């Protein structure tokens, strides 16, 4: 117990350190770096929430973009001023119910998350009876239905014109604050016996049922918690880039998040965070290939579009050479860090054989 | 003809076969007997190339050490396996299952001849030639599995639990046919839980327990061994 108290203290210190770094970043880095840092946080929120659903509970869900869309739209409609709404809905007037609704940003994000989670519940009850790939396809279908409905429901969403001029509340503090909340909630859940139940359902649903676990209830629970944070992530995205439209939330977005989750390591929260850092940075860093690179006299002309080519090759390399993802199912823990500091070589040779981490208290 | 030396098989963390050595002479019926999980199936799976992590050596006359070869290569050397649980392809017809058994062969006439031969061994299969494998009864499926293994015209036939789940009458039938096949010159490696039936037709037998050979001898020797009787009746 003493050990665990110390670990808690460490974790607290790490969070304080994180915010100290943010404070430094906010005052010293340019907006570009801050933008990327913000995206890392949002991607991490999305990846961690998808990992809860897929990596820890074993439900192949491809509905994340749909939940994000709901979170983003609900939050946006709640934080826009009535004047903005009136001037923005140029095709069809905004529905009178929504015209005067207004909530503070933080509350709006939470409501966005709750809305996503409610939709998640409505979807979960019929489709969670399906298993494996069929579940993935059905959730993908639902996400697309959500998108089509948003496109066509102009009085509520302004249709394909989207919404712009959303106040940019999602600064570093907000995004990383939510990331900490997301990780805290999900890690607390996973470390408790509820988490053990989730993992049990993933490993062997039949055995879990035999152990008296109402697997349907827990699957729905995991799905809705994941959907909640996906909604939050969507709301933050909206408030970060200040404009949304239905085309942002296609299945490609879900694939991007899935890519982060799998590349980081399915079933590893640390992996999801590392994955979102690496993939977000890699995408931006690769922009160099699109501009001419001069090596002395010799100049390689920049090829437009080359960035995505190299990105896909790198993604495939990660999967082909580290098929379990960068971290596998390993998780960060202070003990693991201590082992790593003492002997890095041995750490990796040992860690690759066994999974360490979330082991009770 | 086939000799296995110090074979170890691992599944994940489980050490299923712990250093088994066997010798199979040409034209014999050799049987491996033992309880569930004794390592019988793992042994023949290793011979067939179906298990990845195994050590030791499997020397096959004329082919050297065949350990580590892919299953499709092993069949071509003349070793066929009728796997545990029959593994009939349920959506293919009996005819097609047999055709598949002859996949490595290109001699249309030879295949046709062997098919007739298999049908003559198991007349009931002929009646059901155009029925899907999955609709056959357990016994018929077992016959089909044995017949399919024969279709590749192998020198060594390995039969993994051919009596599994069959009515006693059928068990007798199957064992009679195994004896008959052997009399036609095929070497047979037979795996059985039904110890007494197996021992009674075997030239040579090995008794396995938790991955090691605990007894070996001719079939008749073991049949009258009190240890065996005790082990199988819990006396």
């Amino acid at each position, binding site marked *: 117990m003493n050990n665990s108290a110390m670990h808690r203290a460490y974790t607290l210190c790490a969070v304080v350190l994180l915010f100290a770094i943010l404070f430094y970043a906010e005052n010293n880095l340019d907006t570009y770096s801050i933008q990327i840092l913000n995206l890392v946080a949002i991607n991490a929120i999305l990846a961690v929430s998808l990992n809860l659903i897929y990596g820890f509970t074993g439900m192949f869900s491809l509905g994340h973009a749909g939940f994000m869309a709901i979170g983003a739209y609900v939050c946006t409609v709640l934080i826009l001023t009535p004047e903005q709404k009136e001037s923005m809905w140029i095709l069809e007037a905004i529905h009178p119910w929504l015209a005067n609704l207004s909530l503070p940003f933080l509350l709006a994000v939470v409501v966005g998350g709750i809305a996503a989670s409610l939709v998640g519940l409505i979807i979960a009850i019929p489709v969670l009876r399906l298993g494996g790939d069929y579940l993935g396809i059905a959730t993908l279908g639902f996400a697309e239905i959500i998108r089509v409905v948003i496109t066509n429901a102009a009085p509520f969403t302004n249709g394909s014109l989207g919404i712009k001029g959303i106040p940019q509340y999602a600064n570093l503090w907000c995004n990383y604050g939510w990331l900490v909340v997301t990780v*805290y*909630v999900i890690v*607390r*859940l996973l*470390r*408790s*016996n*509820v*988490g*053990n*139940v989730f*993992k*049990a359902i993933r*490993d*062997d649903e*039949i*055995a*879990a*049922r*035999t*152990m*008296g*676990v*109402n697997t349907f209830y827990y699957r729905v629970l995991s799905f809705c918690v994941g959907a909640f944070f996906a909604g939050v992530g969507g709301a933050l995205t909206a408030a970060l880039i200040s404009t949304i439209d239905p085309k942002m939330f296609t299945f490609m977005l879900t694939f991007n998040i899935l890519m982060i989750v799998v590349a980081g390591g399915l*079933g590893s929260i640390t992996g999801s965070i590392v994955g979102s850092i690496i993939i977000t940075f890699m995408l931006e860093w690769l922009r160099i290939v699109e501009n001419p690179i001069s090596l002395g006299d010799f100049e390689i002309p920049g090829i437009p579009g080359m960035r995505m080519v190299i990105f896909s090759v790198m993604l495939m390399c990660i999967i082909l050479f580290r098929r379990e993802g960068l971290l596998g*199912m390993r998780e960060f823990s202070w003990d693991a860090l201590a082992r790593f500091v003492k002997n890095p070589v041995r750490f990796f040779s040992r860690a690759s054989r*066994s*999974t360490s981490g979330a*082991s*009770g*208290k | 003809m086939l000799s296995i030396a110090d074979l170890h098989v691992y599944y*994940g*963390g*489980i050490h299923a076969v712990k250093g088994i050595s066997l010798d199979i002479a040409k034209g014999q019926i050799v049987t491996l007997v033992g*309880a*569930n*999980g*004794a390592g019988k199936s793992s042994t023949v799976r290793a011979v067939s190339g179906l298990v990845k992590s195994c050590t030791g050596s499997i020397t096959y006359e004329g082919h050297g050490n065949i350990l580590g070869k892919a299953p499709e290569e092993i069949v071509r050397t003349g070793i066929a396996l009728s796997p545990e649980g029959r593994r009939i392809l349920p959506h293919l017809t009996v005819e097609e299952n047999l055709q598949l058994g002859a996949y490595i062969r290109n001699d249309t006439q030879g295949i046709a001849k062997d098919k007739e031969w298999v049908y003559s061994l198991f007349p009931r299969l002929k009646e059901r030639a155009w029925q899907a494998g999955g609709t056959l009864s*357990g016994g018929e499926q077992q016959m089909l599995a044995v017949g399919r293994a024969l279709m590749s015209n192998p020198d060594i036939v390995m039969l993994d639990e051919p*009596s*599994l*789940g069959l009515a*006693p009458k059928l*068990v*007798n039938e199957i064992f009679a046919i195994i004896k008959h096949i052997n009399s036609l010159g095929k070497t047979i490696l037979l795996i059985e*839980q*039904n*110890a*007494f*039936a197996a021992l*009674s037709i075997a030239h040579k037998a090995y008794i396995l*327990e*938790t991955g090691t050979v605990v007894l070996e001898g001719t079939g008749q020797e073991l*049949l*009258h061994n009190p240890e065996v009787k005790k*082990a*199988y*009746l*819990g*006396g």
Partner: protein
Amino acid sequence: MNQPTTSLELVNATRRFGGIVAVNDLSFKVPQGTICGLIGPNGAGKTTVFNLISGFYTPTSGKILFEGEDITGNPPHIVCRKGIARTFQNIRLFSSASSLQNVMVGAHLRQKNPWWFPIVPFLADKEEKMVHDRAHTLLERLGLADVANAPAGSLPYGAQRRLEIARALATNPRFLLLDEPAAGMNPHESSDLMEFIKNIRADFDLTILLIEHDMKVVMGICSHIWVVEYGQCIAEGDADAIRNNPKVIEAYLGEEYLQYA
């Protein structure tokens, strides 16, 4: 409780899959506090019986009574809640979780906290600790304390079997179904297992029904044995009665045995 009461009862249970009758009009009564055995050749329908009892299959016809209560058609997790736990023929552990976590999942059933308690600091700690300790105690009782934090999938075979039993015990059952607990064990291990099963029966006040191929085990610990073939009960009685029943010998050991025996 002096009179032996019936713990579990199958009444004319039948289960068909398509045209195949896996369990055919099977009836038996397991008396409270005993260890009973179900034997028969592979494919005779023994595991189907277990699946019927534990709620994975609903009987096509017939009834299943547990302590007098009709549990026919209840889903598995409800059956487990009523006090019936089981193990599986081919071990089904949560292989990536640690042994401790495996047992904790079993103990989850008796937890009362709502799911969101763990999120709030300290709120769930008491119950979590209780579950944790209970799981640990069980692991200790079953001699698995030193592998508590190892992933279940990496344990040796015997330990996995025991862990599966530990997990089943964590649900606090009154009735335990063991599907081939001695499979893959050598004679030494299986004689240990016999002691072990007897002990847990006494310690946890259980009724146990087991499927087993190892005759030594079955004959050694079962007070009552049913022999199943083609989904039907062909013989029943104590070890001696079964051992000398010609029908059993024919079905189970093969006709040839008669010639040589």
